[in-house]
């Protein structure tokens, strides 16, 4: 389980995370929703330590850290290796082939044997239907393909949790569907997943749990059914505003 307790992150004038306490259950898909600038991405990035909160505790599996202490390099690496991140603009490494984009982490971080890493990478590419791109470079692929590759790159690390930061926001609807299908398969296969998204239809279909964030605070955390039953006026407004 991933658990945040009283996590606080403040920029100069802006309270990005305001005393957040929340749990992300194992083998479930948790979707983080909320208006733009609410702190959804900051919350997700805090789990991966790309953002460093100033206060609060975080537990990921068997590791617990207190953000008010200086984290050692060792702690940071150990925590980061528990999760893998899929970014909004995929952020593949442009100078490496698709295969090496996927194997670089397993070989250098997990110290996997090259053949083992490459076989695993090919299996993953097979699963997302992109085995024929192994020797090409990211710039030769479409956005939807690159995002599927970046999902493979995350999966290759055998992470305890996979974090998705608005994985389809930069894609055309058609390409978005390709990526969402991959995500849906992952959700069904009992991976532990946290997704930040604006796609309500997707949230409705795959979320086990929904966390609603606004102004750096958790406004709601509960099951998908509860959420879509409009538990508060604010959530009802939010859901209505999404309709057109």
């Amino acid at each position, binding site marked *: 389980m991933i658990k945040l307790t009283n996590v606080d992150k403040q920029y100069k004038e802006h309270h990005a995370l305001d005393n957040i306490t929340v749990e992300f259950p194992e083998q479930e898909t948790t979707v983080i929703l909320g208006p733009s600038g609410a702190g959804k991405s900051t919350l997700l990035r805090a789990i*991966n330590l790309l953002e460093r909160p100033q206060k609060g505790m975080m537990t990921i599996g068997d590791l617990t850290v207190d953000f008010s202490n200086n984290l050692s390099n060792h702690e940071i690496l150990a925590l980061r290796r528990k999760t893998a991140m899929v970014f909004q603009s995929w952020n593949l490494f*442009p100078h490496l082939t698709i295969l090496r984009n996927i194997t670089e982490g397993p070989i250098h971080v997990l110290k996997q044997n090259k053949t083992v890493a490459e076989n695993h990478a090919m299996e993953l590419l097979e699963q997302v239907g992109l085995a024929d791109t192994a020797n090409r*470079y990211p*710039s030769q692929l479409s956005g939807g393909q690159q995002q599927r590759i970046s999902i493979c790159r995350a999966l290759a690390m055998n992470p305890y949790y996979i974090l998705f930061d608005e994985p389809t926001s930069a894609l055309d609807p058609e390409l978005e569907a390709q990526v969402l299908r991959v995500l849906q398969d992952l959700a069904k296969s009992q991976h532990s997943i946290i997704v930040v998204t604006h796609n309500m239809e997707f949230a409705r279909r795959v979320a086990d749990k929904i966390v609603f964030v606004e102004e750096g605070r958790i406004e709601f955390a509960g099951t998908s059914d509860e959420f879509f039953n409009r538990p508060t006026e604010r959530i009802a407004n939010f859901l209505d505003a999404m309709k057109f």
Partner: protein
Amino acid sequence: MWEIIRSTTPEIVWAGIKYTIPIAVISFAIGLVIAAITALIRISKPRGNGLVKGIWYLGKLIFSFYVWLFRSTPLLVQLFIVFFGLPNIGIQFNAWTAGIITFSLNTGAYASETIRGAISSLPSSQWEAAYSLGMTYSQVLFLIIFPQALRVALPPLSNSFIGLVKDTSLASSITILEMFMVSQQIASHNYQPLLMYSIVAAVYAVFCTILTILQHLLEKRANRYEVAEGE
């Protein structure tokens, strides 16, 4: 005239192979290492507790001072200080060593700015993607950042290298028998300065042309992951 060209050119080219090229190559290699270290220190953001942070800031200051110093003074003056000046305070080098030290430090100062610019030009999302895989700082640097930065830095670094090859002619002033010095000596015997300096100019031009061709080949290889765009 052809007779003079034929008899003197080999001597000049030989001086180039024996001095000009080795001095340029060795100084550039050392200069690149200095440049990379300088760039990294100047980019870094000091962290840690009071003392560590203080030393870190001091280090940044020293490296900034070094870059400023070598970019603000003429190379010829730097050579003179190292070779003729430092012996006054008991630091003595032979001409070779003095040349290599000065050329390396000079190249390092300029190239560090090139490398600093190239690293800063990469989007921070590349660092983030690499860190999110659990890589250490040095893994991110060597596997992800340097290879990409090198591609950006290749044209300006090639410029520096070609510049350095020509600047080695200044080594003649600290008694190194490189190409220019040799042609000078021949000219003082045969009273043909126009011819001798034209020959040495041509040899420099040939060396630099070869380097330019090499640069293009390197760039082509470095760009291989971009050329196919839109395929």
